[in-house]
């Protein structure tokens, strides 16, 4: 079932990523981590559909926020990040997915690991935790290409200040901020050991990012003693358009 949603807010997160807030009158609600299908239709009836993770916490206002990263050769993401205007209507189906989700009843430690725009469904989990006033302890290890690529920077900073709910570690693959202690590079075993929950606390781990990123990070979590059934992954490939 396709539902029309009206674009009510547009916000550029970075040079290539934009958050689109939609009002969907009969939205059935969602769980943090789920995604939606978005359908675009050309005047001659041709349509294209891609999946996007929901960035917003579950809410009662029928609002759904999607953060879309523009892919150079994408068919749908350039339209969503450059063409769409406030007042436009998009068609949505969902929410979809019952595995890569965090439910507010979960009280165990939560380890989030994001690569690039893989932060989007994890941000929904963080926002959901805040909105529900959950006491589940959250850690986020967030890998980006360079400092300018961080999504939700101000909000993450506010949520990770002393006494705030999220313990946040950034890591950079190409360029680091001035005086950053760690050289640019992939996540490695040492970073997992210093920035993620000890495995004897039995955290549930959520890893989202490009395929190679997820393969690496999930493998390291497993090597660190986390059992495979506590590691949930969501991958997007170069053509996947999926966040």
């Amino acid at each position, binding site marked *: 079932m396709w539902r*029309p949603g009206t674009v009510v807010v547009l916000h550029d997160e970075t040079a290539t990523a934009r958050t689109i807030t939609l009002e969907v009158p009969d939205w059935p609600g969602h769980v943090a981590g789920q995604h939606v299908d978005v359908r*675009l239709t*050309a005047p001659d009836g041709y349509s294209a559909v891609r999946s996007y993770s929901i960035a917003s916490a579950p809410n009662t206002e029928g609002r759904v926020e999607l953060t879309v990263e523009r892919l150079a050769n994408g068919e749908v993401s350039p339209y969503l990040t450059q063409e769409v205007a406030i007042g436009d209507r998009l068609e949505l189906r969902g929410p979809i997915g019952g595995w890569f989700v965090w439910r507010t009843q979960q009280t165990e430690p939560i380890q989030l690991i994001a690569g690039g725009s893989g932060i989007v469904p994890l941000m929904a989990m963080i926002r959901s935790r805040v909105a529900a006033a959950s006491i589940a302890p959250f850690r986020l290890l967030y890998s980006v290409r360079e400092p300018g690529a961080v999504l939700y920077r101000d909000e993450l900073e506010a949520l990770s200040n002393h006494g705030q709910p999220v313990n946040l570690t950034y890591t950079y693959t190409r360029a680091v901020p001035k005086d950053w202690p760690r050289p640019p590079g992939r996540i490695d075993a040492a970073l997992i050991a210093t920035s993620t929950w000890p495995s004897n606390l039995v955290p549930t781990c959520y890893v989202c990012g490009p395929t190679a990123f997820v393969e690496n990070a999930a493998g390291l979590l497993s090597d660190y003693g986390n059992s495979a059934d506590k590691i949930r*992954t969501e991958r997007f490939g170069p*053509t*996947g358009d999926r966040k």
Partner: protein
Amino acid sequence: MDIVSRGFSGRRSAADVKLPPGQYLTTDFPVLSAGPTPHVPLDQWEFTIEDGTGVLRRWNWKSFRDLPAETFRADLHCVTRWSKLGTSWEGVSLDTLLADLKTDASHALAHSYGDYTTNLPLSDLMKKQAWVAFRFDGKDLAPEHGGPARLLVPHLYLWKSAKWVRGITLMHQDKPGFWESLGYHNYGDPWREQRYSGE
């Protein structure tokens, strides 16, 4: 009631490419898995056929690879909407693995290293429709794509083609697998666009 997207023209596939509804063509091979990639050493690998009470047949890697294998081409359709056409595989047909097995089971549950499961009617595994595949594009199947061996049932959405497959259980009653319990369609025919449960 489609809403026309102002200013959207889209990128159509070539007219002679026939794709299932809602799919788009890709030339690379994206990966979708629910958890970490299991790495299964060949000397520990096995494939079994069970009936819920016991093991009916069992192969280790050597005895499995001694079975007659075939090369075949397949079009792949992932529920996340990419399709990849004309891919080249080598594997052992389920017709070979199930040959002469007397069973009145109606369904099968494929199970994998890493505990993934997926269910299918047993008839969908027979008559040259399904393989346990171990080579892709002339090379040993990479772990992220399901190596050492994966089920391949190309006429259904790709989540039915269980990666890292370690056996099938024959059943007299259908039982949903992993994604089938989490909102995805029980059967998953791409040509009927059976993506999600309730469709």
